[in-house]
């Protein structure tokens, strides 16, 4: 973090600068500093979550129990890995990090609408992370899985305070996101430069608007459900307790009503990033701009009416299953619109294969693979067999932990020169991409096979029959881990000795407003509101 701070210091030269020392960061109300804080928090979290997954893969490398004797500990690892990656890595990086940095820059606003609320959002996130770590350390930890299904998560099966801490952690992280979402929506609605109508906003802004709306719709439902679980655990209510008039399945409805939109909350910002990167490095405006914008809106909307595809095994009647199969498959339509528009943008463009573009193309490929397995799982009949197997793990890691993470990496390499004012080493960037791309595919592709062969998720031991692919998978994990370390090396090396970046290092393809301010972006930008109204014909 001190490196990031040092890199920043050249930035704020004009009129009133930033407060010095730790105060600058703790009391920060500057959207760029808060964005940086979010990115740093995300990087810390991805290391923590990464170490958890490393331990999981180490144990799964061969059959039998090698390193982890305490099975509850394994459950805690799996749970903490999920929580940390979802709530403290992907969301802070894409939403808090890139959103804070680039919403004001791209729409021509001087800062977010509510700078102090922005500060609270960030520090709530840190509190959430600390609560989550506490949860792992008390009373044997929370071994519920990130889905926290009762009865496993109730007071009978997790009697200690661990689950209560996990619930509080999610409450706090959720409050942080709600504050952030309100800030984003207000900023986007009211503070765009004159002439930047909704239909002329950059696609990243569209993506953040859709994401923020999804957060506002989904997170309160999670908060409600978590509160019910908390009172079930501590105050004798029976919302999810069958022997008291409640129903554990009700939890699943509430959780997935939040949970499915949540997966789109994590991918829609990446859609926005990828659109900019693809257009920049193809030197063409994005193909079908309006289609792209409304496809995101449609994906967001449909995301709220498909939740029960996570629950095909709970015993719905056939009509209910048919509905959820159909509704789920409909999502493939706007998703397809996006994929084809990206391809059409590249088609005939003069493509430059810089690191961000490699990551964008990697994103498209991985997202298609994950989308196809998603459609496979959307078939209720197939899902009865595949539910809770490694096939599901492979599916959501393709779309989430590698496609969404590729979105983050693509955006990071794309915007890093703007954020720190220095260029990363292109050769190292490309090596890092290929190492990562090969690693994650070796890691996750075999999990399709283990899953189809019936290997259950969340279990540390397995029969000999699954040994081969699990070994391959673990090798992939080590390669990906090495690639992550190389990424951190590149970040540090750039901050220390990167060459000075020009205002626009990417050439004519980069057309959005952030490329018109110097690199690194000064502490205050757009004090003079840019005029985006169409030029009158003279």
């Amino acid at each position, binding site marked *: 973090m001190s490196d990031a701070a040092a890199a920043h210091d050249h930035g704020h030269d004009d009129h009133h600068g930033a407060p010095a020392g730790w105060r600058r960061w703790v009391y920060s109300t500057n959207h760029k500093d808060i964005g940086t804080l979010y990115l740093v928090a995300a990087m810390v979290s991805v290391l923590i979550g990464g170490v958890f997954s490393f331990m999981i893969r180490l144990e799964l490398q061969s059959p039998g129990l090698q390193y982890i004797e305490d099975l509850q500990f394994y459950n805690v690892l799996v749970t903490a890995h999920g929580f940390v990656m979802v709530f403290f890595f992907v969301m802070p990086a894409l939403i808090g990090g890139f959103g804070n940095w680039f919403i004001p820059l791209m729409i021509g606003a001087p800062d977010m609408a509510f700078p102090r609320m922005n500060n609270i959002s960030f520090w709530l996130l840190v509190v959430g992370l600390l609560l989550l770590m506490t949860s792992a350390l008390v009373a044997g930890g929370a071994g519920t899985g990130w889905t926290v299904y009762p009865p496993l998560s109730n007071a009978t099966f997790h009697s200690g305070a661990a689950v209560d801490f996990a619930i509080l952690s999610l409450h706090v992280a959720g409050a942080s996101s709600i504050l952030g979402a309100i800030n984003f929506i207000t900023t986007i609605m009211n503070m765009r430069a004159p002439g930047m109508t909704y239909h002329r906003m950059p696609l990243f802004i569209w993506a953040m608007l859709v994401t923020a709306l999804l957060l506002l719709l989904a997170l309160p439902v999670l908060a409600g459900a978590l509160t019910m679980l908390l009172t079930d655990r501590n105050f004798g209510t029976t919302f999810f307790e069958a022997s008291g008039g409640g129903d554990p399945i009700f939890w699943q409805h509430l959780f997935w009503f939040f949970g499915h939109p949540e997966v789109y909350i994590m991918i829609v910002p990446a859609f926005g990033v990828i659109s900019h990167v693809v257009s920049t490095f193809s030197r063409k405006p994005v193909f079908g701009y309006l289609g792209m914008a409304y496809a995101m809106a449609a994906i967001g909307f449909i995301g709220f009416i498909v939740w029960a595809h996570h629950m095909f095994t709970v*015993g719905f009647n056939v009509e209910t299953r048919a509905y959820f199969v159909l509704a789920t498959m409909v999502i493939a339509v706007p998703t397809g619109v996006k994929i084809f528009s990206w391809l059409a943008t590249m088609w005939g463009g003069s493509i430059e294969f810089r690191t961000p573009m490699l990551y964008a193309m990697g994103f498209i490929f991985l997202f298609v693979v994950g989308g196809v397995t998603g459609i496979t799982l959307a078939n209720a009949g197939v899902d009865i067999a595949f539910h809770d197997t490694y096939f599901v793990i492979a599916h959501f890691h393709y779309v989430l932990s590698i496609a969404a993470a590729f979105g983050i990496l693509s955006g990071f390499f794309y915007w890093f020169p703007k954020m720190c004012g220095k260029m990363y080493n292109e050769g190292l960037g490309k090596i890092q991409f290929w190492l990562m791309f090969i690693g994650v595919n070796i890691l996750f592709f075999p999990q399709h096979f283990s899953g189809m062969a019936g290997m259950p998720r969340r279990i540390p031991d397995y029969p000999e029959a699954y040994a081969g692919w699990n070994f391959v998978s673990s090798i992939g994990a080590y390669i990906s881990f090495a690639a992550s370390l190389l990424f951190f090396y590149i970040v540090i090396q750039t901050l220390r000795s990167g060459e000075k970046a020009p205002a626009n290092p990417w050439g004519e393809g980069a057309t959005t407003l952030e490329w018109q301010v110097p690199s690194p972006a000064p502490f205050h930008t757009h004090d003079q509101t840019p005029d985006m109204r169409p030029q009158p014909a003279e």
Partner: protein
Amino acid sequence: MSAGRQIPRRRRGGNRATALSLWVFVAGMVGLAFAAEPLYRTFCQITGFGGTTRTADAAPRGMADKLITVQFDANVNIQLPWRFRPVQSNVKLKPGQEALVFYEATNLSDKPVVGTAVFNVAPFKAGPYFNKIQCFCFTEQVLKPGESVVMPVTFFVDPDMAADANTADVSTITLSYTFYAADDQSKAARIQADRGAPSAASDSKS
């Protein structure tokens, strides 16, 4: 970006109004999450979703020509000091035929307790066709210390079940009850007061 043109000023106070309406929206969503609880319950009762059974006040008309087995299951919440079991483990009957069966409950504690029962059937899809005419689960049960009661259930399976393509394959239905301590223990408190001893209401409530 022509420098000469006047830049229109932004509305002032607009941000506050926007944020306020967004807050109202968030509060509304939290409200909806809690409203989902009674809605979910009602939805299950109306549609027979999740194996929720039906209530009927008259015997069915007609009978299907297929023998099915109805099994009986009984559970007690750990906080309720009762023994609870079905008197018969199963009956065989034809859809449309009315059946009378019994469950037996015993209060093992030394205090009067009010219990209520929840119930459903498995497979869930049989729920809409499972009709109860009379059932102890419709009302609360008060048991004095050591008291035992035998409680009747009158039910029938709708003959339409055999005609529905969805449920034609059902040959066994399990009816399950779970007894738990009722929220309202005032009846037990009154009995206790008559006997001149301290009430059990406070500690039998979870």
